[in-house]
């Protein structure tokens, strides 16, 4: 069976109004639409299937023998915490990552997608979390990118038909975007709609939505969910990744829960409700529980006492322009404040705004005085430093030596003769001191830092800022891409710094880490602070669930229904 999805007749189905689309509530009881290529796909039930897929990165097993089947005419949600393996699984399915072990089957046949374009040709389209629009093309051109309607024997793009088709697709999503606007001018939510319309324009049999509603408002999101149902009813397999668990419960026919790279639970909708294998109905709160379900290890050091007195750093109505706003936060000396939230909640942007890497609104107070930092160096001189989450792209210069990386922010101190000479022996001594202090495994400090493991790189990334003797440390994803052993060491380092009086803000998507390390955890959602869990709350058994609910907006819903 070789479904020919490239012919014109397949395309037309997509553009029919939703009501006229072939109805099939599930692949088993509905006729398989002819444009799917017919055949046996409904027999096995699985259109796209991952079998015993394992993906290993150096030091990390991102996916652990995951077997999961996506059926035509079904919305299949995959949920899990950040780092649970959802993104890796989607990358495997859409061809950008090859599994270490295991295989991916499309309509029962083994596939080997070398690159995303292969998967797309085979009929698997993905709406990415990161937007992939061509900023210089207009909306209509972006929507029909790669499948432009042609005229004049295929030599010219039929602009009229292109605009018509783009307009129809966007109308299906309930959007009335100006088709002639450049994609680069769109807001994130508008761009997301174009991205989705682009996906609909392709004749994909499997459509993967990766966090499609993260940047959408409530109304836009509900229109999108309606469109997802329509796609399902056309007989496609719809894969839905979302942190918004209430949406998952509302829309999904099947839910798979990933935790630490393994599939831990599957729920199927029966009689209108999601049920586990025993037939017990579940709601979003039990989903959150299944996602978390993990005991905290003993890799976290004991928490020291936060000192009283004036806040070392205080934000008042602060925000990163366009990304967050109205944030009131204070960190005292010796205190570790955790900042939780979903990806895109605005945590990193807020931190970057504090040290002057982004435009900001509101006020920053340092030891009681109002400050506005013009840049990293300005903030550093005042004693506020930020360790980036993106170690390879922003936090370090991977091609430069460990020493050069180590002393880059504090280079002025090694400058002699007005900067004409750097005291290199002084630099070496500083690097040696931190190598000893943090037990960094670094045989040749003059070799490129990329030769070190993630954990040792991270220790340098932290040490280079501690060398500037800060009073406030903002550290973003301190253990991303770091093995467990080094994680424990980094936690110990942060805890020790706090004991010595440093005020610390830890941003992390790993809740156990935040809970194990912080005195208090603040939760951000959609650019705002939405909750706080204090020290007692962090000790409680349900705190991880509480944070997940706050971060995904569930607690508000609960209050509304109560």
């Amino acid at each position, binding site marked *: 069976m070789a479904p020919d999805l490239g012919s014109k007749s397949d395309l037309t189905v997509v553009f029919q109004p939703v009501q006229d689309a072939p109805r099939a509530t599930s692949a088993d009881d509905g006729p398989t639409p002819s444009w799917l290529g017919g055949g046996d796909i409904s027999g096995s039930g699985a259109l796209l299937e991952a079998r015993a897929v394992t993906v290993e990165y150096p030091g990390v097993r991102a996916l652990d023998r995951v077997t999961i089947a996506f059926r035509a005419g079904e919305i299949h949600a995959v949920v899990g915490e950040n780092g649970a393996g959802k993104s890796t699984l989607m990358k495997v399915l859409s061809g950008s990552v090859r599994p270490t072990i295991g295989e991916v089957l499309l309509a029962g046949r083994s596939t080997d997608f070398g690159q995303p374009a292969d998967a797309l040709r085979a009929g698997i389209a993905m709406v990415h979390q990161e937007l992939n629009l061509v900023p210089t093309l207009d909306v209509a051109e972006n929507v029909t990118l790669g499948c432009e309607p042609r005229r004049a024997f295929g030599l010219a793009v039929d602009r009229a038909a292109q605009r018509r088709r783009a307009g129809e697709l966007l109308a299906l999503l309930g959007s009335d975007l100006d088709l002639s606007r450049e994609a680069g001018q769109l807001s994130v939510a508008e761009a997301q709609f174009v991205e989705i319309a682009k996906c609909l324009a392709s004749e994909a049999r499997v459509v993967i939505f990766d966090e499609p509603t993260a940047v959408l408002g409530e109304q836009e999101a509900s229109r999108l969910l309606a469109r997802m149902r329509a796609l399902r009813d056309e007989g496609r397999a719809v894969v839905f990744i979302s942190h918004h668990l209430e949406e998952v419960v509302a829309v999904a026919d099947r839910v798979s829960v990933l935790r630490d790279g393994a599939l831990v639970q599957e729920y199927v909708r029966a009689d209108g409700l999601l049920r586990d294998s025993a037939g017990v109905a579940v709601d979003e709160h039990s989903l959150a529980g299944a996602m978390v379900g993990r005991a905290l290890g003993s890799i976290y050091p004991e928490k020291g006492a936060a000192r009283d007195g004036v806040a070392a750093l205080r934000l008042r109505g602060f925000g990163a322009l366009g990304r967050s706003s109205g944030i009131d936060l204070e960190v005292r000396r010796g205190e570790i404040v955790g900042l939780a939230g979903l990806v895109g909640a605005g945590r990193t942007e807020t931190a970057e705004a504090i040290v002057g*890497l982004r435009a900001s609104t509101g006020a920053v107070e340092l030891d009681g005085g109002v400050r506005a930092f013009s*840049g*990293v*160096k300005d903030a*550093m001189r005042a004693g506020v430093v*930020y360790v*980036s989450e993106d170690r390879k*792209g*922003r*936090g*370090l*210069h*991977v*091609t*430069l*030596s460990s020493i*050069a990386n180590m002393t*880059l*922010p504090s*280079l*002025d101190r090694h*400058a002699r003769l007005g*900067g*004409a*000479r*750097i005291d*290199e022996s002084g630099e070496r001594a500083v690097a040696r001191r931190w190598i000893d202090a943090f037990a960094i495994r670094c*045989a*040749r400090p*003059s*070799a*490129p830092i*990329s*030769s070190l493991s993630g954990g040792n790189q991270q220790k340098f990334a932290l040490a*280079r800022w501690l060398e500037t003797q800060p009073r406030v440390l903002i550290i973003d994803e301190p253990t991303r891409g770091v093995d467990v052993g080094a994680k424990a060491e980094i936690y110990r380092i942060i805890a020790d710094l706090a004991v010595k009086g440093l005020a610390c803000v830890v941003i992390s998507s790993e809740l156990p880490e935040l809970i194990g390390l912080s005195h208090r955890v603040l939760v951000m959602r959609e650019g705002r602070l939405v909750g706080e869990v204090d020290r007692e709350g962090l000790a409680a058994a349900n705190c991880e669930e509480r944070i997940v609910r706050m971060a995904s907006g569930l607690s508000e819903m609960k209050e509304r229904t109560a």
Partner: protein
Amino acid sequence: MTTRKPGDAFSIQRFLERWGVVVAFVLLFAASCWNQGFDFLNAENIRALLNSNAPVGILAVGMTLVIISAGIDLSVGSMVVLSAAVGLTAVNWLIGKEWSEASAVWIGVGTTLLVGLAAGSLNGALVVVGRIAPFIATLGGLAAYRSMALAIAEAGEIRSQSDTIFRRFGREGIPLAWEVPGVEGAESTFRGLLNSGGKPLTLPYSIIVFFFVAIVAQWFLSRSRFGRHLIAVGANETAARYAGISVEWVRFRVYAVMGLLAGLAGFLQASRMNSVSTSGLGVAAELDAIAAVVIGGTSLRGGFGRVWGTVLGVLILGMITNMLTISGVSPYWQGAVKGAVIVLAVLVQRGSRA
């Protein structure tokens, strides 16, 4: 700053990536000796080789710094002619105003350097403040600065009115004494060995300036704060900004320095000719400079480079021209050979960097 990873086994590929330019230089030098016999080793010949390549060498040194910052400067040839034209016009004007020749020349020298600095600063401002891609901003300079020079002289030649002083810098040098105390006739023996034809041997100012510029640039690149910042900005601009480096200030300065060096090269050229041909001076100099940088092993992607490699690159290009000319190859074909060498250099050095 090396990009070799520790513990890597020796490989020819890696060796050539790093030392290819030295190998090429030694091979070419040997080939020239074999080809031209001791005529090539003639001190006069080597002096001429260095002397004629000094101006483009100075440009190439500046270009090395620009390229390390992940930029490019296409306007160097036009900055050379503009600064030289304005400088020499100033000299002539002052002499016409009955100023003493010496003061006119010194003011002219200062004017030449200042015009270069101003043109380079404008490039830098366009790149940094105007946020225009360096390629485009300096492409504009390439056209505009040349056109300004042409306008000054109506596309003709500006002849120096300074009869003695101005021409000295490009033509004269420090006399080299080969006298060995207590040994009668040592000087003539050395001259005989070096085959300088009995003329007094001098070390031209151009060569001194070229090597001085190269040594200072190499020092600043590898030992100074500015060099460290330059490499950091070129390797990863975002990471540099996150480390608290003022990326804009670093980039502005490197273009300004490039302009200053172009002014210096323009002055040496004008002095050597004792005139400025506004339609001929510095034409395609940017290509020679970029070629020397690439041959020298500096990464066009920025973040890695070495001035000494560029100096060897300049000499390699000079030796090739020299050899081809002596072998009677038509100057029209010399460009093709140079082009092949440049491509070959990139192929050999293409690895982790180029």
